[in-house]
């Protein structure tokens, strides 16, 4: 295998795939990237057996072929190379010679045959959607994924394809984020699948504002095809909890808040939320919310926020981090906060189909 490529193209290609590379060294081949030179391009593939990514870059291929090289090492070498033109030459024993300007590197690789192939998606159900929709949807939900490994079904985002709608749901048991995306697909493609956190993270990195994405669902795996990049992942087996149970049916009070103002106030006040109780209190009174936090033996913070509110006076406490996370992820100017009472969950909504349910914390006073 022999090719010449510019430093930028090679770096960009490696950046797309290198995050998947396994840090566990049980199988040495998994820390390698598969390079396949053919025609006018070189394909790059990495996998940790759960998630796999395939990207490519344009190159002047002199001799086609394939090999695998240690991904992290290759990336750090390429990043440091002085010249913009890089010559790659791999011999029959998988030893790669990298030449760029005055620099010369020789890296030992492993044969292509050892690299686990990415799964095939033959009779899979295929749905095509806009990249932007999925990117927005994942941004609005993925922060609520549970990191508690004992609740493995929650360690991912639910993709629920139902009634010409894709519903994305993430929850960790204290909060729940949900987005609906209008989508057309045949009835037979209806499915509930759980995409693991790692795949979601990688996918968010790959998604852009333009173009389409092709989602192929196999029996226990999924592939996301973004024209020149492919991401495949195993699915989390098990049933995602019935999230609808969590959503309060009606709200007693609704306040409309300017997202950024509210977020900034929360951010300031939360500086004095104690690590221990970690709660921030919203005190509602006529046309005003007092946001307060205090830590014993440290101090307290208070900020008033004028709002249109005509309901009864009451206080409710939330985990500030959990309240700020959706506000950061959203882009809308206005958000609605629906409340019932101090012990019932609060619901954050926007104009478009999005929902964030957050359990209040007990007010100790």
């Amino acid at each position, binding site marked *: 295998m022999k090719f010449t490529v510019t430093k930028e193209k090679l770096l960009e290609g490696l950046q797309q795939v290198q995050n998947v590379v396994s840090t566990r060294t049980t199988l040495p081949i998994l820390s390698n990237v598969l390079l396949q030179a053919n025609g006018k391009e070189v394909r790059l593939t990495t996998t940790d057996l759960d998630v796999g990514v395939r990207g490519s870059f344009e190159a002047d291929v002199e001799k086609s072929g394939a090999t695998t090289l240690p991904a992290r090492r290759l990336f750090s070498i390429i990043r440091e190379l002085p010249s913009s033109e890089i010559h790659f030459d791999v011999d029959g024993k998988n030893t790669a010679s990298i030449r760029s300007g005055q620099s010369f590197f020789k890296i030992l690789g492993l044969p292509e045959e050892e690299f686990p192939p990415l799964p095939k998606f033959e009779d899979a159900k295929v749905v095509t959607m806009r990249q932007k929709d999925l990117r927005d949807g994942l941004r609005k939900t993925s922060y609520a994924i549970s990191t508690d490994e004992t609740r493995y*079904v*929650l360690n991912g985002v639910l993709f629920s394809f139902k009634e010409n709608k894709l519903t994305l749901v993430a929850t960790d048991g204290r909060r729940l984020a949900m987005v609906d995306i209008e989508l057309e697909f045949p009835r037979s493609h209806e499915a509930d699948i759980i995409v693991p956190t790692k795949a979601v993270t990688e996918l968010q990195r790959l998604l852009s504002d333009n173009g389409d994405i092709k989602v192929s669902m196999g029996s226990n795996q999924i592939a996301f095809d973004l024209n020149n990049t492919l991401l495949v992942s195993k699915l989390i087996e098990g049933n995602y909890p019935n999230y609808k*149970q*969590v959503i309060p049916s009606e709200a007693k009070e609704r306040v409309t808040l300017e997202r950024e103002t509210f977020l900034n106030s929360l951010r300031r006040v939360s500086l004095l939320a104690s690590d221990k109780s970690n709660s921030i209190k919203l005190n509602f009174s006529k046309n005003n919310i007092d946001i307060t936090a205090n830590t014993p033996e440290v101090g307290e913070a208070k900020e008033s926020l004028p709002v249109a509110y005509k309901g009864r006076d009451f206080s409710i406490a939330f985990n500030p981090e959990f309240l700020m996370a959706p506000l950061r992820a959203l882009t809308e100017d206005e958000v609605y906060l629906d409340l019932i009472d101090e012990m019932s969950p609060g619901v954050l909504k926007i104009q478009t189909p999005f929902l964030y349910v957050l359990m209040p914390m007990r007010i100790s006073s």
Partner: protein
Amino acid sequence: MKDKCAELWQRLAAALKPQVSADTFKRWFSTVELVDATDTRLTFRVPNNIYQFWIESNHMAALQAAIMTAFGAPREVKFVFPGNSGEAREEAVVSQRSETSDETKSSGSALGLNPRNTFETFVVGPNNEIAHAASLAVAQAPARTYNPLFIYGGVGLGKTHLMQAIGDFVWRKKKSTKVLYVSSELFINEFIDAIQHSNLVKFRKRYRQGDLLLIDDIQFLAGKERSQEEFFHTFNTLFDGHKQIVLSSDRPASEIANLEKRLVSRFEWGLTAELQPPDTETRMAILRMKARAMQIKLSDEIFQFLANRIRSNVRRLEGALMRVASFASLSGKELTHDVVEHLLKDILQEEARHSITIEQIQRRVAEHFDLRLADMTSKRRPANIAFPRQVAMYLARELTKASLNEIGDAFGGRDHGTVLHACKLVRKRMKEQDSLRQTISFIDSSLQR
């Protein structure tokens, strides 16, 4: 069980309602069902996993507070829902089987019975056939044959096994029977607790409304006067109500020190059955049975070796078998005589220690009667020396394998007639005097230790 759970849940729900909002209660707790309740753990059945996740994350504090209010002590909380792991599946299977689903599952734990202790797994030999037959008779017709049934025998001979087998058998035959199996220690503790919290009525209700009361290790009642009194009344109520009572002890009722006369006489009222250490054949049978149950394959030679060398009790026998088997499966080495001997070194030593020598007996008896060891072998024969000497001879005859002549020799060259006479005399006196019987059984047990 179902009714009990429903009742407990009522109490818990009442305590929980003020802790959470009405909407929360309706949403998360109205469909929750309490399916199993022990002293340490409550198991709730929820429709699906979101209930578990959400309750665990958000309402655990409220739930635990309600548990404290309702039951006075914290409990471990467990959730099951259809489709999760082993337990729920098992439950699903059970519920198909019969309407008494929950009870079947919770049988052993709720009653405190070990499901392995049944009549089928009890190996009958000449040492325990009477006790076994009596237990079986009691189990088949509670309160109609022998009431109370008093089983006694040394450690690890199967008292608990038989009692639990009775409980299990009776309960299996008729699920509505109230079977109560407790150790006397638990009885005492609950009694003390009841006095402390002044809810004796509840305590009495618990014990006096059972159909079958099984009390293990009754000898621990000794010296606990209030408990004895309470037990006396419990006993009478049950007995008069024609309910079966089964008791076990490590010694005959009459030999339990500090046990009230009226209790002793009641214990001896029905049938007293003794369990003795198993003979070699029975030990072989036990070993084979256990090995089958544990799915262990050992050669006959090893079985023979274990059965011959470990005589004192079944529990130890089982332990030795387990040790040999696990060694075999872990190391994969072939089990030879030497290997087994090395493996069981400590157990075998312990066993050997149990073969009592005449000298030990003499020493122990002399100590007890406050004599010098030399008095045991001397020619002097005033009554205060002669009688203890005769007791020692009797014990030597009973506890060792020595012949009459050997015993005579050990006691300063007396002939076998003297020894024979001593044994007869002691036996006769033991029948006449309870105090002597107690003394001798005390020395006996201290020697066995």
